[in-house]
C-alpha cells in the first residue's frame, strides 16, 4: 500500500543577497536540502528541530504553497505542484493547514462563523445557506466553542479560542491531511495542552493524517506516531517517538533530548550543551553539517556527508552510529 503522502528528496533553496564587499553577493540559502519521508493514512509524523532549520518551509512545500527547487511531493498518488490553478485549489479540500499565529490567519472583519463556513462556500457553492450554517455550528461545537461566540470577531476571542476557529475551518471539509505548523507555540502554556488534546481527539474521531511541526519535543512526542528530527534543512534521525526520544542515536538528537527538563531524568543523564549557534543555512558546513557543533566529530565528518540509514525502523544520519556502534545498542534493546 502506498503512503498517503510521499515526499522524495525535497529541496528548497532561496536566492539571497548578502551585503558584503562593494556590491554584496548572491548566495543560495538552503532552507530545505533533501528531505524524504512518507505519511500513511491516518498517521501523524512529528517534525522537530531548532528555529530556522526549515520546518515551516517543509510544511509549505508539502502543501504546494511554494514551489520546490527539487524533489517531489505526492499526495494520494497525485503530484503536488505550486501552480495555483483550479486543480490546486480543488486539492485544498483534502489537505489543510493550521498556522502558528491564529489571529493573523483570520480575517478581522468577518465574524468567526462566516470564516468557518468559508470552505463550504468555496468548495460547495451549491450547499444551501441553512445547511452551511448548521454544519458550521456543529464544527464550532466539535472544537469546543460556545454557540454565542459565532458572531464574534477574531479579536474578541482568546488566543486558544482563535486557534479553535482555525482548526474548525481547516477540518470543515474533512481533509485527509492536516499540516500543523507549531499550532500551539503562540498560545499560553496553560492552553497548549487543551488545544493539543482537542487535536488528538479530533484525529481519533475523523482519522486525518497529520504533519505535526514543533520545536517542543514533548509536544511532538504526545502527538506523533513517527518523528523526524531536522537539522539545517535535513532529517538527521527518524523513527518511533519512544525509540528516538528514549534512545536517541544522533548526537544532535541526544543534545535535544538532554535539554528537556524532566524531573525523572534529573541526575541520570548529563545535559549536553551544544556549543555555538547553528550555522547559517547559506554556508552549510561541508560533510556532516552538524560537525561544527558535534561533540564527537571526527576528521571524516568534515568531508563526507552521512546518509540517513535505516535499521529496524530507526534511521540515523551519522557516520559513527552507522559504523556499527548503533546496531549494537539497538540489538540490546
Amino acid at each position, binding site marked *: 500500500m502506498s503512503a498517503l503522502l510521499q515526499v522524495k528528496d525535497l529541496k528548497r533553496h532561496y536566492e539571497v543577497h548578502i551585503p558584503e564587499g562593494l556590491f554584496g553577493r548572491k548566495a543560495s540559502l538552503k532552507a530545505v536540502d533533501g528531505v524524504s519521508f512518507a505519511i500513511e493514512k491516518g498517521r501523524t509524523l512529528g517534525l522537530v528541530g531548532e528555529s530556522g532549520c526549515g520546518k515551516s518551509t517543509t510544511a509549505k512545500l508539502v*502543501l504546494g*504553497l511554494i514551489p520546490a527547487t527539487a524533489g517531489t511531493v505526492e499526495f494520494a498518488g497525485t503530484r503536488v505542484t505550486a501552480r*495555483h490553478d483550479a486543480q490546486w*485549489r*480543488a*486539492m*485544498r*479540500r483534502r489537505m*489543510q*493547514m493550521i*498556522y502558528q*499565529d491564529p489571529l*493573523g*490567519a*483570520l*480575517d*478581522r*472583519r*468577518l465574524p468567526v462563523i462566516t470564516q468557518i463556513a*468559508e*470552505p463550504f462556500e*468555496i*468548495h460547495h457553492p451549491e450547499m444551501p445557506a441553512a445547511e452551511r450554517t448548521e454544519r458550521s455550528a456543529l464544527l464550532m461545537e466539535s472544537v469546543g466553542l460556545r454557540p454565542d461566540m459565532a458572531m464574534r470577531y477574531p479579536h474578541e476571542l482568546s488566543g486558544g479560542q482563535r486557534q479553535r476557529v*482555525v482548526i474548525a*475551518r481547516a477540518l470543515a471539509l474533512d481533509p485527509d491531511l492536516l499540516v500543523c505548523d507549531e499550532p500551539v507555540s503562540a498560545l499560553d502554556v496553560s492552553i497548549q495542552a487543551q488545544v493539543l488534546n482537542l487535536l488528538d481527539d479530533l484525529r481519533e474521531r475523523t482519522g486525518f493524517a497529520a504533519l505535526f511541526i514543533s520545536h517542543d519535543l514533548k509536544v511532538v512526542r504526545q502527538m506523533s506516531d513517527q518523528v523526524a528530527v531536522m537539522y539545517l534543512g535535513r532529517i538527521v534521525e527518524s523513527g518511533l517517538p519512544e525509540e528516538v526520544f528514549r534512545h536517541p542515536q544522533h548526537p544532535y538528537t541526544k543534545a535535544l533530548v538532554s535539554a528537556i527538563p524532566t524531573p525523572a531524568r534529573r541526575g541520570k543523564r548529563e545535559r549536553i550543551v551544544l556549543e555555538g549557534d547553528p550555522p547559517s543555512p547559506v554556508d552549510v558546513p561541508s560533510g556532516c553539517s552538524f560537525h561544527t557543533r558535534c561533540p564527537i566529530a571526527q576528521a571524516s565528518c568534515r568531508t563526507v556527508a552521512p546518509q540517513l540509514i535505516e535499521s529496524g525502523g530507526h534511521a540515523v544520519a551519522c557516520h559513527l552510529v552507522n559504523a556499527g556502534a548503533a546496531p549494537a545498542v539497538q540489538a540490546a534493546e
Partner: protein
Amino acid sequence: MTIDTTPGLEPASPAHASGSVFTSKSRVGAFFEAWPPLVLIALFWIGLIAVVVVGAKWIAPYDFMALDLRARLIPPVFMGGSWLHPLGTDELGRDVLSRLIVSIRISMVIAFLSTLIAAIVGVSLGFLAAYFRGRVEQVILMLIDAQAAMPFMIIALAVLAFLGSSLFLFTVLMGFYGWERIARISRGLAISANERGYATAVRDLGATPFRIYSRHILPNIASTLIVSLTLNFPEVILLESGLSFLGLGVQPPMTSLGNMVGYGRDYIQSAPWIMLAPSAAIVVTTLSISILGDWMRDKFDPTLD
C-alpha cells in the same frame, strides 16, 4: 486638535465643582473633541447638499428653464429683491435658486459617478498589479506614472476636442481623474494585505483570487480607500466646474455649477449674484468635503497622504 476651555467657565466656588457639573462640561468637551465644530458644519452642509440632490425636483420653486421676461435681473432678497426669487433672476428671468438647485444636482451626480468610475478603475488596476506582480505590474506602474506626469486638465481638453462632448462621455472622462492615485494606494494596500496571514490563509483554503480580493482584501482596505475617495471627490467637482465654466463640459440647456458661473460672468457688473451664488456653492461644498476628508484621514488613517 484640542479645545481650549475658557477660564471664565471654570466653577466659581468649590461647592459648584460637584461631580455632575464637571462631568457634563467635560462631556461637552469630549463631544467637540471627537466632532470638531468645523466638521459638524461641514457634515451639515453635505447633508443639505444630499437633500438637494435627492429632492431637487420638489425643492426647486420654478422650472430651471422657465423664462419670465417680465422678471429679468431681479436681485436676491438681501440685495433688495423679493422672496418670490430668493436668489434673484438672470437675464432671461430664470430663477437663480431653481437653476442653482438643478446645477448642484447635476454637478454632484457627475462628481459621484466619476469618483465611482475612478474607484473601480483604480482598485481593479491596483489589484491586478498586486496580484500579477512582475511584468503586468510594471506596465500598470508605468501607466500610473504617465498619468501622474500629465496635468489632467490638458488630457481632458484633448479628449473633448478629439471625441466631442456628451454628458455620458464627459462623466466617463471625469472618471479617469484620480484613478492613478487610487490604483497606487490599492496596490500598496493589497500587497501588504497579501503579506498578512489572512489572505494567504484563505488562499490555502482553496479560494480563487477573485474571492480573496473581493471578499477579504477589499473590505479590509475599504476604510483607507473611502478616505482617499472622499479627498478625490472635491477635486472632481473643481475639474468638472472648470471645464463647464469654459463651456466644454456640461452643455446647455443642461446646467451645472460651472456653467452657471460661466454664464454669470457676463453679468458680473449688472447682476453679480448670478455668478456668486454658484461660486459660493462650489466653494462651500468642496471645502466641506475636504474638511471631512482631512478629518477622516487624521482620525482613521494617519498614514495616508
